[in-house]
C-alpha cells in the first residue's frame, strides 16, 4: 500500500501512522453542549466504502494528511494536506 503524499510523492505505508476519522478536524464550539461533544469524541460511522481518515507522515515530511480511502477495495482516491483542508472552511 502506498500513499501519495502531496509533499513527498508516493511513499510506502511504513512511513505513515493512522490516527482516525478526519471528523477530528471539525472540532465543535466549546459551548456546543454535551450531546454535540459526546458525538464528536465517541461516535464514529463504520462505513463499507469511502472514508476520510487522518494519517501522519511520521518518518517523512511530518505533515498531517486527509486520506480518502475505500474500506472495501482499499483504493486511495485522494490525499490532501490537513492544513489545507482545515483552512478551507475559514
Amino acid at each position: 500500500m502506498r500513499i501519495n503524499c502531496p509533499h513527498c510523492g508516493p511513499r510506502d505505508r511504513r512511513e505513515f501512522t493512522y490516527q482516525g476519522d478526519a471528523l477530528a478536524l471539525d472540532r465543535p464550539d466549546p459551548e456546543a453542549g454535551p450531546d454535540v461533544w459526546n458525538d464528536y469524541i465517541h461516535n464514529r460511522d463504520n462505513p463499507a466504502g469511502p472514508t476520510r481518515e487522518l494519517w501522519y507522515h511520521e518518518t517523512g515530511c511530518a505533515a498531517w494528511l486527509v486520506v480518502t480511502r475505500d474500506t472495501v477495495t482499499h483504493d486511495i482516491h485522494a490525499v490532501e494536506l490537513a492544513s489545507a483542508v482545515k483552512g478551507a472552511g475559514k
Partner: protein
Amino acid sequence: MTDLLAKSPCDGLLPLTIGSVTVTEIAFDAITSLAPFKGQESAVSDALKVQMGAAFPKPNRTTGKAHARAVWSGVGQALVLGPPLAPIPGAAMTDQTDAWTCVALEGDGARDVLARLTPLDLRPSVFKQGHAARTEIAHMGGVLMRTGENRYGLMVFRSMAATLVHDLEIAMQSVAARGRL
C-alpha cells in the same frame, strides 16, 4: 576550564569497507535547522545565498556542494550542513551540530545496500543526484540524499549512530555475499 576531547558520533566505528561499498563518517563544522516564517521564504533564501552560495532547497531536494549543503528536512524546514550561519532575519534557526550522525555510503553496490534498509524508490531515474528524502532508514526516521552517481548521504539522530553502523554493516555483508554466489 578542563579541555574536553571532542568525539564524533561514529568514533571508533567508521570507516568500514565490505565488498565494493564503503561507509565513512562526515563531520560538518555546523548543522543548523532553518525554518522561514510565513511569507519570508524568498527573503530567507536570498540571505542563505549570500552566506553560503546556495538557495533554500525545494521539497525533497538539496542545494549547494559537499562542504556547504542545504537539504530539505520537512515542511518549511531545511538543514544547513557545513558553514556556521550568522542569524537570518525572518527565520527560526537552531544549532543542531551535535544532534545528527552523518555518513556517506559509496561504491558500486551502495544502492543495493540501501534497498535493504529503506522503503524509498531508489531507482536512478526516480531518486536522482541532488534529490533528498525524509524517510525510514533501518526503521529510524532519517534524511537520505543522493550526492553522486553511486554516493549517498545518510543522516539519523546522533544517539542512533551505533545502530545505523550495525545495520549498514549487516546489509553490506549480505550484498557482498550475494555478489559471491
